[in-house]
């Protein structure tokens, strides 16, 4: 009996202590698959760990996390008090984390060495005069076409304006191919679905002082009507309203859609690998009233609950040093975060994305940006399903977002 009780006690103690988190003086970084190839990614981050430890004598632990559910996981870790010291964040997340008092400013570490950071990147990472993220790389999205599908539908000039897309859509639909891939699931970031179209129409998500929504403007309606019209003529996937983007089974990669309007370079490379370089065209961002696309810096932020902020700042300084950043750019295929360095152009994909870089917009930074997205997305679904008109859907969403902004 006594022996059994002791065994049970030991087993329980082992179970409960197993749930605790690691605690030491190491700097912990949460990193994501910026380098798509897993083997390459592991090798690069192991090298970074070793390099930092050799230079500063402080242990670095890089924890590689998946993109999927990243905000939820980070939020849960922060709330539980066991988050990392440093994390990769994007500009439209930063104002929210600053408002939640989860980040420390890193202005003092932002030097860039002999290089000059892209001003748009630094602006996007600045909240109330303080920089909360150190640019590590610059991404951009652009239009990617499957030339073969267009040719099969008798289209030789690839469409690069909204009007041309609408004109070409019925011809492809007649062959059972939607012209534009679109993922309308509420889990998708609108930065890569609806917002680029909103910006191309000349609209914005919020008004200039961030006190009200602005997406229900005539420009917003025009952008949503573009999608709804395409849907009606078979120009979007049947499940566009609820579709999720698939990293592996992308519709353009699989030849189930003829083009994407905001594709990232790693997916474009998958397209090339699947349908061949001759059939893949990396074009400029689509033109509505404006030519603009989504592109943003990936930045390292310092969390307020970092165990050792001074050691974490040393790591930030090391990680943003030119040598480390340049190698990341080579490994990831993303652009350098500086204006005075040439992008590592090696093939047609790089060239196409480099051309799109000047038109990149980092999203509408606002503490409520992500919540506004969550409120807007179901209304976009309603319009795509035809249960609301574009005007009604955007007006409904605007009412909810404005109420949220007023409450705050």
């Amino acid at each position, binding site marked *: 009996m006594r022996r059994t009780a002791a065994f049970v006690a030991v087993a329980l103690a082992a179970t409960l202590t197993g749930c605790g988190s690691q605690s030491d003086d190491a700097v912990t970084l949460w990193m994501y698959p910026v380098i798509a190839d897993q083997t390459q990614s592991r090798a690069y981050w192991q090298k970074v760990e070793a390099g930092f430890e050799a230079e500063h004598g402080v242990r670095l632990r890089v924890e590689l996390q998946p993109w999927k559910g990243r905000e939820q996981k980070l939020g849960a870790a922060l709330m539980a008090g066991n988050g990392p010291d440093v994390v990769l964040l994007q500009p439209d997340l930063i104002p929210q984390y600053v408002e939640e008092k989860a980040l420390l400013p890193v202005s003092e570490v932002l030097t860039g060495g002999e290089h000059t950071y892209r001003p748009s990147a630094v602006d996007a990472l600045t909240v109330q005069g303080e920089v909360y993220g150190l640019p590590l790389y610059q991404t951009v999205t652009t239009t990617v076409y499957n030339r073969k599908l267009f040719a099969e539908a008798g289209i030789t000039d690839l469409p690069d304006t909204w009007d041309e897309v609408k004109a070409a859509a019925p011809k492809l639909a007649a062959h059972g191919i939607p012209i534009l891939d679109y993922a309308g699931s509420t889990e998708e970031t609108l930065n890569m679905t609806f917002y680029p179209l909103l910006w191309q129409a000349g609209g914005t998500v919020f008004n200039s002082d961030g006190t009200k929504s602005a997406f229900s403007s005539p420009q917003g309606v025009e952008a949503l009507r573009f999608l709804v019209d395409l849907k009606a003529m078979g120009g979007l996937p049947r499940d566009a309203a609820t579709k999720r983007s698939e990293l592996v089974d992308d519709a353009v990669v699989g030849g189930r859609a003829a083009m994407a309007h905001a594709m990232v370079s790693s997916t474009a490379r998958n397209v090339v690998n699947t349908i061949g370089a001759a059939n893949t065209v990396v074009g400029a961002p689509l033109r509505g009233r404006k030519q603009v696309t989504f592109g943003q810096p990936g930045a390292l932020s310092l969390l*307020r609950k970092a165990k050792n902020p001074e050691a974490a700042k040393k790591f930030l300084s090391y990680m943003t040093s030119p040598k480390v950043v340049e190698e990341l750019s080579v490994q990831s295929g993303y652009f350098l975060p500086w204006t005075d360095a040439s992008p590592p152009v090696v093939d047609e994909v790089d060239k196409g994305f480099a051309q799109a870089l000047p038109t990149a917009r980092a999203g509408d930074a606002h503490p409520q940006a992500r919540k506004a997205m969550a409120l807007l997305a179901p209304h976009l679904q309603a319009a795509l399903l035809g249960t609301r008109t574009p005007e009604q859907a955007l007006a409904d969403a605007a009412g909810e977002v404005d109420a949220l902004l007023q409450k705050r």
Partner: protein
Amino acid sequence: MRRLRELLTVLAFLLPVLVLFGAFRFLPMLGAAGLSVTDYRPGGDFEFVGAENYAGLFEDQYFLASLRTTLTYVAIYVPLILVVALGTALLLHSVPWGRGFFRAALFAPYVTSLVLSGVIWKWLFEPAGLLQDPSTVLPALAIVGVWKGFGYAMLILLAGIRNVPADCLEAATVDGANVWQRFRHMLLPSLRPAMFFVVVVETIGAFQVFDLIYVMTTGGPVRASYTLAYAVYQYGFTYFEVGKAAAAGLALWAIVLLVSLTQRRAFERNP
């Protein structure tokens, strides 16, 4: 002395479960109750806000809508799983051979990965567009939920059926009772305890449906499958409104408790 020893033995056997239940269920629930009266933020700052989060729930149109959606899902799912589980349990009881094989085959979905099943069912529903239509998404989800969960309920009901004495059923057959009469007046009354258990467990499960929604619809389309548990998740992990998420979670707990007690009373009144 002997009673004390018996009591200690019982406690020793119960201790592991009590400790685990306390650590992973009861303490978190107390924590949630504490969080629900604060405005806790990811940065760690919080202030006491009293009943503000609870009041906020009733002003939130989407919380009330999620309650309606959840009730609709429960109303579809619970009767459906009961019928399917009872039907398969009766079939399984009457097969003369290969019962073990059929039992394992029918139980298999219960132990299949939900993510995997969700993806396969999405493919199956895709041609008919059932998950894209707000009016069909809940029945479609309920079908997947029933497919995934009926194996467990079936085993409980099968055990109940096997407890009915075979000689009584034989005597009824000799006395001229037909299949329906034997089922209605002999099997069904004997199955009441098992059915009560199944109804309560499945109702609780249906109120808490989350993983299916997360994998298959993410609450859409147009919030047509936005259930209470999904709302709790979104408040907490999308909006970082931890206090409100905790309040919604406790509201869900209270609703489930109320429904379970009502069911218990209903079964007691109609023995």
